């Protein structure tokens, strides 16, 4: 399981492709969630080797809202999510057409530094992945790497972000302990605190509760609601009820195509596309 370091040149592909406007944005502007656009994909086609995972995906992600990415297994949700912080760039055989714009600027623009991009666009994974260091060091690991905090300020930063995720009370007496002694839910909260400590603008959640029990799931979901509107959240989920609970807007992907993008309630109750209706109905039975 090694990360392949193939020399994929991201910046040389097509430049910003503009002029495609998301249908749903035009047809269903909802006052509650209609804000400026944080992330845009323009004709994004992407694959590994001979397989094409995403084809011609055009979506807008609203700033300060929670956007859910739903779709059946293999529909490209996670791939799309991992494209936003360029985690796919080094996968072997990676190829891409089209573009992703963060605040109107291509994330593959030569002037964009990938590490700074990943500071601005944080990520939480399917399973908690603490680092092999103490709980406190875990929280500040990213902030230290980006020189946002010195050795002296570590404890304050750790307290601030552990409090923000509601973990401070549970761990304040064991900051020097191993994070691996925490429960799965606590570990995931720790990872969230770690992601928040680098002050991201966008947070990508890749099925963040798929390995957690219902109580921890609820804790994470409630937290996600508190992050907006300061942070733009994109959450991949298999759980349609979860999308309904946490997301302002929902994007439905199927077989690598963006089928529908709209306000969550609208998409679930009055889907514009038949495919969406089938998927949503199928899950609700």
């Amino acid at each position, binding site marked *: 399981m090694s*990360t392949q370091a193939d020399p994929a040149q991201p910046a040389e592909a097509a430049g910003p492709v503009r002029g495609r406007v998301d249908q749903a944005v035009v047809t269903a502007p909802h006052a509650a969630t209609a804000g400026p656009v944080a992330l845009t994909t323009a004709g994004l086609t992407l694959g590994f080797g001979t397989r094409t995972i995403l084809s011609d995906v055009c979506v807008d992600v609203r700033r300060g809202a929670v956007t859910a990415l739903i779709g059946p297994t293999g529909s490209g949700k996670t791939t799309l999510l991992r494209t936003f912080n360029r985690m796919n760039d080094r996968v*072997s055989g990676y190829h891409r057409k089209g573009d992703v714009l963060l605040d109107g600027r291509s994330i593959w623009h030569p002037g964009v530094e990938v590490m*700074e991009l990943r500071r601005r666009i944080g990520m939480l994974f399917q399973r908690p992945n603490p680092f092999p*260091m103490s709980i406190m060091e875990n929280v500040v690991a990213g902030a230290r790497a980006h020189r946002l905090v010195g050795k002296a300020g570590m404890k304050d930063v750790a307290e601030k972000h552990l409090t923000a995720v509601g973990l401070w009370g549970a761990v304040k007496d064991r900051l020097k302990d*191993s994070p*691996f002694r925490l429960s799965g839910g606590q570990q995931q909260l720790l990872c969230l605190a770690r992601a928040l400590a680098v002050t991201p603008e966008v947070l990508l959640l890749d099925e963040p509760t798929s390995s957690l029990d219902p109580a921890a799931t609820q804790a994470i979901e409630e937290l996600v609601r508190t992050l907006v509107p300061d942070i733009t959240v994109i959450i991949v989920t298999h759980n349609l009820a979860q999308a309904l609970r946490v997301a302002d807007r929902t994007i439905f992907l199927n077989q690598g195509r963006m089928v529908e993008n709209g306000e969550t309630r609208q998409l679930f109750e009055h889907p514009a596309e038949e495919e969406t209706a089938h998927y949503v109905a199928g899950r609700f039975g």
Partner: protein
Amino acid sequence: MASAPLARSVGEAVAPSPRRPAPMLRAVVRRADVVRWLGRTGAVIPLAALVFILVVLLIESLPAIRYNGLHFFTTTVWNEGVSYNALPVHSGGVYHMSGAAFGALPEIVGTLLTSLIALIVAVPVSIGAALTIVERLPRRLASLVGIFLELLAGIPSVIVGLFGALTFGPFIAHHITPVIARNVPDVPVLSFFRGQPGSGEGLLTSGLVLGIMIIPIIASTTRDLVRQVPILPREGAIALGMSDAQCARRVTLPWVGPGIVGAVVLGLGRALGETMAVAMTCGVALSTVPGNIYTTMTTIAATMFNYLDTAFLDGTGFAVRTIAELGLVLLVITMVVNIAARWLVRRVSGIALPVGRGV
């Protein structure tokens, strides 16, 4: 005994023949006594062998320990005494040649210094190589490099020694060390790097040759360890905007930290005990503690090897006893290093490392 089920298992239902050796052997094996006893014996052998070697060395070197005393560790003289036209002297319950005096300080210091140099060279190179092989190289090239790494580990030490004595030593003595030796300032620690570069036999050459020899050991073990680090925490570090170097330093290497310490100890054990390559490149200076990094010197192992012939000429056998004592010292040093490393591993893993690291 149970011949009927046996016969059935062999597939001879018509004419069972319990005399045939194979089924009988199988019966014994199936009773598991043989396997159980084989296992037990195997489990005891390492301990028994270690104790046996220690006891034999101790018995062999007892007279030397008694006569040499603690001076053995503090003095530098190496003299088996007058061998011609002289009668053995009896002192302290031990027969030895008159004037015999042995001090192993140069050997002990030499052993530790060469191994230190070897580690300083080998550890960064090995870890860098392991990380590169696992994380950077394409799969095919990585396995090719891995094969060469293991081939390098298999080169006989006499070949490496020859390379060191013929090529490598003279090369650095002519082209590299003179520059350093002349330009290093004469301040406390750095003055160890001043002095006559010599002809290429000595401390630096021996240490570097040892370094070359232990790189494959440390690197291939570390590579296997790094391969086992799960992708998830590494991706977490990358997604947090850490550079590859930060990810390696803060996540990948700590994840397998205890294992890397173990790999380094494995290499150190080899370096401490390596005989042939050092004997060929050290310059064999028996009675001087190295004053600078270029000077000729010797190690415990090299002395035991180089001096054994001469020691047998001592009619009292005392010189050979002293060689045994040297061997005992080397064994103890190696064991102390091992135990210290274990202690270090436990301490490190107790503080920072996860309990269930399997993830």
